[in-house]
């Protein structure tokens, strides 16, 4: 379905060639050879995450982990602040217990660590996906990529499209098309 907002968020289509693959090993080999040629700007499509592809693409670890860590630390701090601040803001001593009693507050600090950590993880995935989507919205997509096909899109100038097509076909692409 054509998204009416796409024009607002994405620029014009990136020129290049899209190869549709039916086999994982062909796709992996194509990716490895692209990497060997020094290419980093290609995009790989797959219906599920595969470690073979991840290893071949060899990108640095996702920055989502930093979001999780920062969220967790922030949550723990908020949990400590909420419990201690409110206790000392209206100090009522019950059963001889200290006003600010850390052991029972650990429960709330833990829950807030998990809550903020999870929400920040989601934020990290969303922000990274949005950043990637700005570029990926300008490249072609095939609905079969969510079903049973793999895809490799290689950006290139129109005069290089023939060479790229030949490269993808030689690596087992069942279908190639220019964008």
């Amino acid at each position, binding site marked *: 379905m054509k998204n009416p907002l796409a024009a607002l968020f994405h620029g014009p289509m990136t020129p290049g060639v899209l190869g549709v693959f039916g086999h994982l*090993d062909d796709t992996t080999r194509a990716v490895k050879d692209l990497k060997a040629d020094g290419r980093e700007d290609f995009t790989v499509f797959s*219906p599920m995450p595969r470690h073979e592809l991840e290893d071949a693409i060899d990108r640095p670890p996702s920055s989502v982990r930093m979001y999780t860590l920062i969220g967790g630390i922030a949550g723990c701090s908020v949990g400590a602040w909420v419990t201690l601040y409110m206790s000392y803001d209206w100090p009522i001593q019950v059963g001889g217990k200290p006003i600010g009693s850390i052991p029972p507050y650990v429960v709330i600090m833990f*829950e807030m660590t998990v809550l903020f950590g999870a929400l920040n993880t989601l934020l990290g995935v969303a922000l990274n996906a949005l950043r990637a989507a700005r570029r990926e919205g300008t490249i072609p997509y095939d609905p079969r990529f969510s079903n049973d096909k793999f895809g490799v899109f290689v950006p290139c100038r129109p005069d290089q499209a023939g060479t790229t097509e030949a490269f993808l076909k030689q690596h087992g692409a069942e279908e190639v098309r220019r964008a």
Partner: protein
Amino acid sequence: MAQTTAPPTSGVRVTYDYVTRVIHRTLGDPGKGYFALLGVAVGLLTIGIICLLFLLRYGLGLAGYSHPVYWAVFITCFVFWVGIAHSGTLISAILFLFRSAWRTAVYRVAEAMTVFAVMTAGLFPLIHIGRQWYFYWLVPYPNERGLWPNFKSPLIWDEFAIGTYFTVSTCFLIMGLIPDIAAVRDLATGWRKKLYAITSLGWRGTNEQWRHYSRGYLYLAALATPLVLSVHSVVSWDFAMAQVPAWHETIFAPYFVAGAIYSGVAMVISLLIPIRRLFHLEEVVTIRHFENLAKLCLLTGMIVGFAYTTEYFIAWYGGPTPEHKAFYYRAFGPFWWAGWTMNVCNWFLPWILWFKKVRTNLTALFVISIFVNIGMWFERFTLIAIHLAGEPFEPFVKAGYNPTWADWGIMAGSFGWFFMWFLLFVKNFPAVSISEVKEVLPPPVRGRHA
């Protein structure tokens, strides 16, 4: 179409395309059986709403409370539904971290069950407070309007725990759904295509998307794992922190967590068997999945049985104490039938799951799972209402506690509420994870291994 060999869980040849189409088919016309079930669920919900309206009009006196029983069916239902929620996270998060491949076909149902069970559980504290329009008094905020939030109380821990659990479970469910919604988006037509185009958030399955998604999913699982253990521990401390005989026990946290997973797995079995039949998922959800669920049920059932044994043993071993009286009251008091229902369903019944023939017989499993859920409801009822009624600290009080039509009506309504959301979910969103089922299939390869 890419051909792959059959997965070890199935006797037929399953391909990526086959998985997508079988799961996509669940979004089609489900037949009369589905609508009959949905009708029953909406009917029960209507009964619950009518009873709730009466309760709002005439007050909590309708609920059969009598001193000292002020926690009864509503709190029982709260603990029951929170417990049901637990196996969802166990199957989706803990088994994910253990790389347990069989979970892929069943975890979506369990996860959806978790979210809807927490939504149901969350209604009961609101119903229980009586004056629902003051619900925001439950929310701790810097001291205003004469409220003093007591952070040393397990009731307030519970609020944080349940709130966090609902939020994290919902995030986990939605995140897992995104690639699968994209898969059905690419096959759908009409209004469904529009719905899935919006809810798949532009998913295309690119390497960048998978890179961030996989990490995010892993960290969510890592966060949800200790969370699931903490939430029912906190619920158990609602009781264990009080000085009521049979409540004030150190084993409550692990005992409650095991019981929660036990009832939750039983509910997954109760839900999966009809869903599998209604939506023809026999090739994806196999007997092996049910057998593994039954093994989980057996394990947690044995832990629960051990906890019951320990409770009775300690009560006997401690001599003539209030604890002793409380357990005598549980077994031989006026509510003996509730205590023995719990014992038979939870303590003795799971033993027959040691037999492989029973674990692989869906009719037997369905019946056992229903009885386990009945038993687990009665466990909470016995623990909460019965032990309050028989509290030996107040021997002059003869509690004439009996649940009323309002209690039963609202409880029935909670089942209607839960099943309505669940049935709507499985009809409109992929009930089995498409991408994760494909992950455990051997990938299509030409033969030149990379």
